[in-house]
């Protein structure tokens, strides 16, 4: 019988057959290939123009997977001696994973620190000016406003104007501002610098001892200043932000150097540079993700919390440009804060523990949404509410 005919006949016989059992059969062959049979049936079925064989039968199955994270990220605290404490880190799972068991749940939501600058000569974007108004002229009032009005848990005070290119203000002025801010608010404060090596070292030399009774953070030690700045954090017991420029290996190296200089593991926060949404954010995204996964898989030299200046989002013209200049992008009032939210939020999904933020509405949204991940899953889900979307009138 020709093959095609045979397979057609076989296919007819085999229609609706799931299994063939051979009884009392002798198979005599030098070489036998069992996979012939299903192939033959399939080809025969095709030859007859039938749809692929389908069986209507409920088939129970279970979702299974196997993943394991043996590492743990350091827990870092910012402590006001007579005020509030903020804790970050301590993760045993990738960000927001809740399905690896209760004991693996991450203990601390990402923290948000609100930016306060010693000058507004750089002209903050209009949506932010509108939120803060006159207090922008006074750093202590600005900090107090952020805490009282917007619920800031942390403040970063940036001394930009000490840079010779930005006014060359004396460091003593920054020390005074910092002391006034610490008087005005009871939340921890991060001490931010200008980017000028000489002045920054001087800034930390003066501010670190002046705030010795607190555990704050020196922000930051970089490749130009680390040899001077890290010992100050060690001596006066502050956290130290170790800042590198989008390079994983440089970050590992600086982390190791800090340990060698005597900085305790629980005083280290990493900043591998936070790039702007739309302008390279994905580099930060992947570096954060690699660092965090490495830390969780047991690489001790990367098992530290990550901080990022998500305020950089406002450098994107999509965030700050007025609708008059860019009508095709919609209202700035909406896209501006959203830009900062997405910049910060997407990075929290890959390991950002501390977001340095600018617009209070953006900061609040990031805090609110990330906090939601740390609540218990309700026992009764409102399933109907979900499936209603397909047929309901949706508000606009």
């Amino acid at each position: 019988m020709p093959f095609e005919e045979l397979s057609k006949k076989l296919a007819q016989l085999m229609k609706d057959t799931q299994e063939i059992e051979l009884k009392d059969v002798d198979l005599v062959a030098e070489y036998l290939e069992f996979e012939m049979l299903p192939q033959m049936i399939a080809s025969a079925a095709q030859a007859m123009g039938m749809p692929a064989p389908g069986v209507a039968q409920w088939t129970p199955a279970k979702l299974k997977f196997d993943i394991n994270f043996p590492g743990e990220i350091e827990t870092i605290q910012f402590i006001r001696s007579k005020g509030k404490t903020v804790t970050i880190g301590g993760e045993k799972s990738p960000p927001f994973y809740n399905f690896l068991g209760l004991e693996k749940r991450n203990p601390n939501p990402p923290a948000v620190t609100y930016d306060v600058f010693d000058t507004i000569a750089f002209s903050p974007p209009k949506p932010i000016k509108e939120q803060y108004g006159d207090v922008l002229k006074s750093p202590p009032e600005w900090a107090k406003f952020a805490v009282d009005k917007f619920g800031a848990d942390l403040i970063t005070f940036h001394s930009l104007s000490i840079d010779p290119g930005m006014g060359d203000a004396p460091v003593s002025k920054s020390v005074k501002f910092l002391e006034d801010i610490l008087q005005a608010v009871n939340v921890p404060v991060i001490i931010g610098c200008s980017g000028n090596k000489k002045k920054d070292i001087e800034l930390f030399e003066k501010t670190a001892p002046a705030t010795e009774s607190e555990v704050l953070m020196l922000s930051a030690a970089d490749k130009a200043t680390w040899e001077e700045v890290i010992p100050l954090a060690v001596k006066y017991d502050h956290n130290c932000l170790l800042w590198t420029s989008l390079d994983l290996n440089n970050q590992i190296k600086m982390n190791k150097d800090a340990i060698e200089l005597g900085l305790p593991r629980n005083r280290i926060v990493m900043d591998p540079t936070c790039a702007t949404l739309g302008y390279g954010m994905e580099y930060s995204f992947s570096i954060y993700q690699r660092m965090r996964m490495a830390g969780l898989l047991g690489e001790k030299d990367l098992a530290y919390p990550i901080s990022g200046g998500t305020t950089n989002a406002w450098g994107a013209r999509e965030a700050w440009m007025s609708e008059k200049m860019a009508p095709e992008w919609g209202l700035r009032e909406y896209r501006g804060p959203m830009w900062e939210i997405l910049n910060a939020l997407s990075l929290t999904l890959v390991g950002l523990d501390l977001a340095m933020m600018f617009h209070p509405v953006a900061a609040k949204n990031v805090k609110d949404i990330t906090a939601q991940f740390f609540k218990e899953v309700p026992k009764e889900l409102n399933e109907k509410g979900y499936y209603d979307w397909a047929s309901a009138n949706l508000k606009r």
Partner: protein
Amino acid sequence: MGKRASPLDIYALLDKSNCKDCGYDTCMAFATDILERKITLDDCTHLNQDPKQAKKLAKLRELTSPPQKPVIIGVGDRKCIVGGEEVLMRHQLTFYNKAGIFIEVPDDMGADLENTIKYLNDVKIERMGDTLTIEGIALRCVSGDVETFKAAAKKITGISGLPIILCCLNPDILLTAAGEIKEKKPLLYAATKETWEKIGTFAAQNSLPVVITSPNMDELISLSATMQKLGVKEIVLDPGTFYGPGSISKTYDDIMRLRTAAIDNDDPNACWPVMGVPASYWTQVDTNGDVVMHQYQEVIMAAIMIAIDTSLIILHTGQKKDEIWGLLALMTLRQSIFADPRIYPTAEPGCFKIGEPGPDAPIFVTSNYRMTKIPVEQDLQGGNIDCWLLVVDSEGIGIESAVAGGQFNGGSIAEAVNEFKVFEKVNHRILIIPGMAARISGTLEDEANCYVLVGPRDSSGIPKFVEELWTPDKYMAEFAERGD
């Protein structure tokens, strides 16, 4: 990460003849690009024409098929491929198929339907050399009426080539409309534990992709096994999108669990694209008060989904023109997450002519990060400014980071000035640097022996800057005085 094949695994199954028919010099080169998904196995004529190679071809197909299968929605130029991913995290390789953004449209819009579809068909944002668009329309059966739903489906396919998801939990209405436009390959939403047989049979017979949905993951996986047995060839998984404290964790966990099971554990039932419906915010949460605040919550959920490589999302916000801010933010995030991490977006360093620069034309300096260079160049061209653009090798890093990191400094700019003989093109020695790089002025003046003018912080300010402040004679006079 699952065991990904190596080029050698592929090479071993090729005929190794180095015949060059495919355009590659060697079978090894062919194997490498197969894994990079630049070409397909169909590009090897030997494999496909020689019956003796059939087994090897089958083996190769198995080796090279991604652990998460791709699903195609729609036909023609705008057909949308979702899923088909090889890795959980973009740095492990790259994400291949960007999250499909589908905008919901109700079937009872009446005369507004046509304008809405036309807007959605054409909406686009040009960004850094890419054209960002949405991928399709999710038509919802709000009328509850089969004729209205069917007519809306026909109307949409008549005026737009955008792929459609037909959304109706009543299988009779769903399948009637699906039958009407089946040659457009709509995605059917959705089969449940109650409706799988009817919908699955129809989908198998008509080769249509189907969404299966359940908030219970074991039930969802069982549905997947069941539908595959029924002969359904393309499946999309919808674990449900739940809002609110704790509920959002379930949403996030389920997407992660499904992706992990598919990609890292080769689960034969989880191996499909995963979708989310941020639009369901509007039926789950009390939406009184400021509507934009609520739109924010929807856009935020969509952003979380895009950031974790969810294959397809359905949005409510974005349907109207004044909601473009939401699409702008989401499509930019998507452009970023789905950029190929193996390619660093640098621009070629050099001194580029913009317009017809004369001897006193200004020279603008920028970095060789592509996302910096392109907008600067566009602003100069758009402002009709005749000038030179000096692109400095900052190792592909943007201005702000490169100033802080030291890649964009007096030394590197001075090098570029020499290398590209910049001052030979003009009769002055003035460089205009970005406002963000103000602090390097001093060192640059010393290193390049020039006068440095600090430009605006953003290149959009250049036209105004040139009009008001470009007085080269004055600066050169100042420069000459300094030299004395």
